[in-house]
């Protein structure tokens, strides 16, 4: 014979499970009807204002497959890490323009740049950057060389660079360029020199 208080406890618990199930079902429906995060292309950080500085951006050109240095004046904060992020955002602004010579997918952004002594820079890009990137050895290495060379040309002391996607290691950018290893800044500098000629 099952005691009466046990019947009561089971009934209350069953009712609680039912109510929670209905609530979870309701919340699930609401979440499905509001898919915001994946398609939100708004910039995460407001643009920096203030005095501008002259920098050199290394801009990729798909039509002739080259990387060209391009002088620009952009407002830069004093903190080194924030400077790195602004440099890359200035570069991305060129690529996200409709007349860009090297189109990156809409919504591409640099989430953060971490500068770790001695000489390590970690670039964390968002998923849109990698997921929608054009596939191809040259296309992908133009992007990588552009990011790394822009950083190391304007922030002395960078020796190695690691690229993460959404804070995680990824095998390749879009099926070709290896992201699993650290990039040697000197080797990328030589690559950037190679890429400045289309011969």
């Amino acid at each position, binding site marked *: 014979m099952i005691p009466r208080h046990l019947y009561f406890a089971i009934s209350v618990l069953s009712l609680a499970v039912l109510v929670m199930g209905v609530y979870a079902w309701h919340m699930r429906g609401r979440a499905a009807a509001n898919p915001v995060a994946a398609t939100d292309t708004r910039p995460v950080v407001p643009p920096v204002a203030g005095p501008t500085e002259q920098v050199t951006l290394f801009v990729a050109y*798909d039509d002739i*497959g080259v990387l060209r240095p391009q002088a620009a004046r952009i407002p830069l904060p004093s903190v080194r890490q924030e400077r790195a992020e602004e440099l890359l955002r200035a570069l991305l602004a060129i690529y996200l323009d409709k007349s860009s010579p090297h189109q990156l997918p809409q919504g591409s952004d640099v989430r953060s740049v971490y500068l770790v002594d001695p000489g390590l820079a970690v670039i964390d890009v968002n998923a849109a950057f990698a997921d929608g990137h*054009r*596939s*191809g*050895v*040259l*296309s992908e*290495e133009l992007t*990588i060389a552009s990011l790394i060379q822009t950083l190391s040309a304007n922030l002395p002391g960078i020796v190695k660079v690691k690229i993460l996607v959404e804070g995680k290691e990824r*095998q*390749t950018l879009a*099926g*070709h*360029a*290896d992201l*699993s*290893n650290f*990039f*040697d800044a*000197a*080797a*990328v500098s*030589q*690559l950037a020199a*190679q*890429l400045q000629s*289309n*011969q």
Partner: protein
Amino acid sequence: MRSIRRDRISRSSTRNNYGNGLGKGTASGGAVRGPETSGLQPMRHVAAGMLLLFAVMLVSAAPSEKRLSVYSTAANYSVPIAQRQGRDYVGLLELLDPLGKVSVKADASRWRIHYNNILGDFTAGKTHARVQGLDTELSGKFLLENGRGLVPLISLGSLLPRFLGGPATLHEESGRLFIGSVATHFTATVSPDDPSRLVLQFTAPVNPSVASEPGKVHMTFSHEPVTAPASSTLTFDSKAIPSAVYSEQNGAAEITVTTTIPLLASFSPDGRTITLAPPKTQPATNATSTPAATSPPATPAAQSAPVNTAPAVARRYFAVVDASHGGNDRGEALSATLAEKDVTVAFARRLRQELENRGISTLVLRDSDANLSLDDRAYFANTAHAAIYVALHAASNGHGVRLYTALLPDSSEEDRGPFRSWATAQQSSMPLSRAAMASVADELRKLQVPVRTLSAPLRPLNNIVTAAIALEVAPPASDVSPLASPDYQQRIASAVASGIADIRGQLGAAP
């Protein structure tokens, strides 16, 4: 000596959905061992014994049924082959059922089969059928037996692609059917430092039964789509293991190794390598481990490996050609219908032909739609001890051909003695790689093909311990269709092969 890995075989049988009736026999045997009562015990034992004896006699007396082994990405299975009117027939429903959604409607003489919304219309006694509205000729009459539609075995090669929308390759003599690019390829090499040790490497895990007789070791692949190497007879420069022969029969592939010494087979943990070696030097319990020099580290932390010191004369292949991407990895979508993975494999086959025309033995790493990891590609290339590795890519942007070597820092790596980093294993071969790239570029320029030579962070170039280059073939103009054109591919392949042939002496002595 008999060495059969029973544990692996049982696992494989489950995985491959093979049924041979033995399971039912065991169940029958189990059924007679029911709960026992004391009075009936002796009679039940006698009855059980008689039933078991009868079952064994029935099984042993039955003629061995001829079966068709089917290999596909969906499932590996077998179906019975029926002899009718002096021809081999198979039931179409049994054949298509494991591959997709199938339904059948049959009346007195008409038999219609729906396979994934594709309609096949057959008529008993007729040699033609309609599949998806198109007439198809059969090599013999369609047979209808108790609602079961039978088609001639030999017609499957032409009939199945209509249903499946892809190639189906029939090995009629051996009763093996390959649906799509599922073949498992293998290489066999005698270890350069131990001529009594034969290493067989497969592009996918295998699980053969191994049996031996004096002078021979037989490996039978009943469940795996193992296919023939370039030559069915492989000869080795070893007195202990002079040769191996590949053959196919009765739905299975078999590799028979001729030997003058007792050999024991052992399997690598990933099931892709089988090593035959004398028992004293290679105990069976010591599963083969691939040479550390040529295999990737288990974890990123263990990034060092002994330097590969295999002499050039031990090479079976001078060149390894790697068709990049494959399987789920389609590479770049070059057009709405053209995937990079398809262009690279077609180009790899042409390049192999051009290289072999120049006397350069060549291994194509991916000769099917298999999905090989980057580590696997490096592993196979390194263990082949080839003189040069060539990775093939295709792209829709730009024109001509782009040649790449690994993007590595200048040689400042710390001295690790006989070990080197997996991530920078290519370092010491960079001069050879650059020389090979320059030679290939020269040949392409002679054909007025636009060429660029670059370095690239492109795996597995940096993991290869010999000369390694990558090609990215772009169309000659804005239209990408020439990438799939035999003429364009042939032109590029010919120049690349000439470039490699020109530098053959520098890369190492040809086998």
